Structure formats: structure tokens, C-alpha cells
């Protein structure tokens, strides 16, 4: 199954999002982003199963949490 990575930026914001999603029973991993996916050095994001993408987008959008999408 394909995974999707959203770039969030900071580690603590990524963890916060992980906890928010876990409350909605969506389980994601906090990951350090690959260098090619960062613009200015180290950065963090969340990785999750493709099947959850619409739910994740909906929850983040509802809460005004910004992210960048990487496949």
C-alpha cells in the first residue's frame, strides 16, 4: 500500500497533529523529511496510508493547519 507524506515543518507541530489525528483514529508516523523534500535544512512531517488522505486533509483544513503534500 502506498504511503503519503505531508510536510509540516516543525517536529512539535508534527507530533501535535499526530495526536489530533489519533483521537480521530487515524494513525500516522512523524518522520524527518528527506533532504530533497526540504528547502532550508532539516524539517519534519507526517506519513500515513493513502486511504486516509481525505480524512487527514479534512481534519487539517478544518483546523487551519498548513501542510505541503509529497507522494
Amino acid at each position, binding site marked *: 500500500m502506498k504511503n503519503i507524506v505531508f510536510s509540516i515543518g516543525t517536529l512539535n507541530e508534527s507530533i501535535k497533529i499526530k495526536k489530533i489525528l489519533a483521537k480521530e483514529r487515524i494513525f500516522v508516523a*512523524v518522520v*524527518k523529511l528527506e533532504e530533497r523534500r526540504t528547502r532550508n535544512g532539516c524539517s519534519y512531517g507526517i506519513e500515513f496510508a493513502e486511504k486516509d488522505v481525505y480524512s487527514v486533509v479534512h481534519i487539517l483544513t478544518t483546523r487551519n493547519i498548513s501542510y505541503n503534500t509529497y507522494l
Partner: protein
Amino acid sequence: MSIIYFDNAATTFKKPKEVLAKTIHYLKKGYGNAGRSGHYLSMQTAEMIYDTRDIISQILHYENPNRIVFYHNATEALNVAIKTCIPEGANVLTSYMEHNSVLRPLYSMEAERRISITFFSHKGNIEENIKNKLSDQTQAIVCSLVSNVTGEEIDLSILSKLKKEYNLILIVDASQMFCHKEINLKENEVDVLCTAGHKGAFSMQGVGFSVFNIDPSRTYIEGGSGLETFSHGMPSALPERMEAGTLSAPAIASLFFGLKYVQKIGMDKIERKLDYFDQLIDNELELLSDIHVLSKGKHGIHSFVFSNEMSSTTAKHLEKKGICVRSGYHCAPLIHKFYKTETTGAVRVSLSIMNTEKEIKRFLSELKK
């Protein structure tokens, strides 16, 4: 003879067994460097630190865990808050009961002609005392919620009300109140709350924190943050902006377990137990002759001095009997001037919920001798 430890306002000595056991287990299990690497040990450590921010938020009724910034102690937290949140040229109100962790950063800024300081009395009607000292230049109040010498309290709701009414920056030192009494940041607006972990929250030494409800005007230290490596400046988001360098994961983990314990016991029960201890001590101290009690004890803190005796003499006598108290000036010079104990100092007895009634009775019995 077992030791009776009554110096808990400095550091709680006796930690709850489960806090010790869980902290030791955490240390044995191992930890990585949070926010530096992508491997599971680093990530687990980062999550533990986040969970500690989260439990602090719950205890303080504060909604955003990521505005909680960790430091090594309350002194560091206060230095950062005072030096990054108070604007140049401000007149700052503070009280006579302050610890040097509030006074010295303020004095340092005053010496550099960056601020001026005005003192208000912590006795009587606090609201009127503060209002009487307000001027057009007043922009901030920095003060402790509880005196580390007498346990006297400055009502947070009054400070918060004045902050809103006069549009002031409010920075509070909650070191002697945190985990001894409920602090509600939802009901009481505060700009920065600073405190230590190693007192009421039973953590190891080496961790304190600030709740930043406002954005500091600048960083205080700069360095590695694990983010935006190629930028010259620190990241813009809290907490990373104000947390340069490696955090003390073991100390923060012990704080997490300490706070879990506090949640389990309940703040009401903690407050009631300390109130009961305070009554036991107050009732007996009143009956002693040749004693100057600085103020009726609160939050488990009592200070006194015998006539014609240095406080250190009394403390040494008690130590010989296995009772650890603190004599001298407790890093709080102005309250000793206020109570006219600058020559003798005072004997401070400071309790924790880990103390027992039996210990208090033994102490009182030694004092009577």
C-alpha cells in the same frame, strides 16, 4: 534516626516511589536526542517531551502545548521572559517578596537603563497597592504568586484583572504555587508563567518551563534546533524558537511522571493536606515565646526567628536532631528587609505532601526544647 526534610521549597527531596521507579526505568530503557534525528529513539524522546508539554497544559488549563518552552530551571525561564518580553523604556512593577530570580534580571536591565522598577507591597489590598504605583510609563508587572520565604500569596485573578484593565504585560513566577494549588490560565490571563519542575512537581533538578502566551520580541540563545539548518536565525515557531540546544530528556521525563502523580492525587487534596500541615505549625508557633514569626504560613511555607539567635544557629541545632530546614535569606532580600530580619535571617520550614504529621510533631517538639 530518620531524616526529616523540611526544605521542599528549594527542592523536594522525597519523591513519590512511583515517580522514582518510572524515572529509573526510563533511564535504563534509554533515550535519544529529541528533534535531531529521524530514528525511533529520537522520535520516542520527542514524543515524551511533547506529552510533558501536554500534561502541563492540562494541569494549567492552557490550550496550546507548543507554547510551553523548557528551560533548565525557573531562574532561566524568568531571565528569558523578562529580557525578551519587556519593552525598552518600560516601568516595571514588582513586589517586595521577590526572589533574586526576578529581582536580578530586573536590576540588570535597570542598570543598563533599559527599564525602571517600582515596588508594591504584597500586604493588604494588592489591587490598591498596585493601582497606587501605576504611572504612564508602567508597561509590565513581574512577580511571584507565592513567596518562597513566607508562603504569602498574590492573587492571580487580581493581577490578571489589572493586566487587562491597564493593558500590561504580566509575567509570573509560579515556582512555589505550581502543583500546590490550582492555577487556571483559562480563567486568568497571563503573558508568561514561569516555574520549576523540581519542587511541587517532584521532577529531578534540571527542568523548568515557561508558558508563553505572547511572542517574545527576540530569541535569548541561539543554536541547534533540528530545523531550518541553513537559516541564520532560529525557527519562527514556538517552542523551537526559544529552545536552542539539547533538552534534558531525563529531567523532562521525571517531570512527566511527577505530573502524572500530581494528577492522580488531585490538586484539591494536595492543597488541603498542605493547609492542614500549615495549621498544625501555626497553632504551635503561636504558643512559643521569644519567637518572631514573619507571617502566618501558607502553601507549606513558614519562616521564623528566635529572639537573640541567628537563624543559622537554630538550623544547626535542628540539623543535629535530623531535621533539615533552611536558614539565612532564601535569595529574597527585600522580604527580609520588610520583616526586619536582615541581621538574623530566618528559619524556613517548607513542606511537601510527602511529609507526615508525625514528622511535623517531632519538629515542633524539638523546637519547644
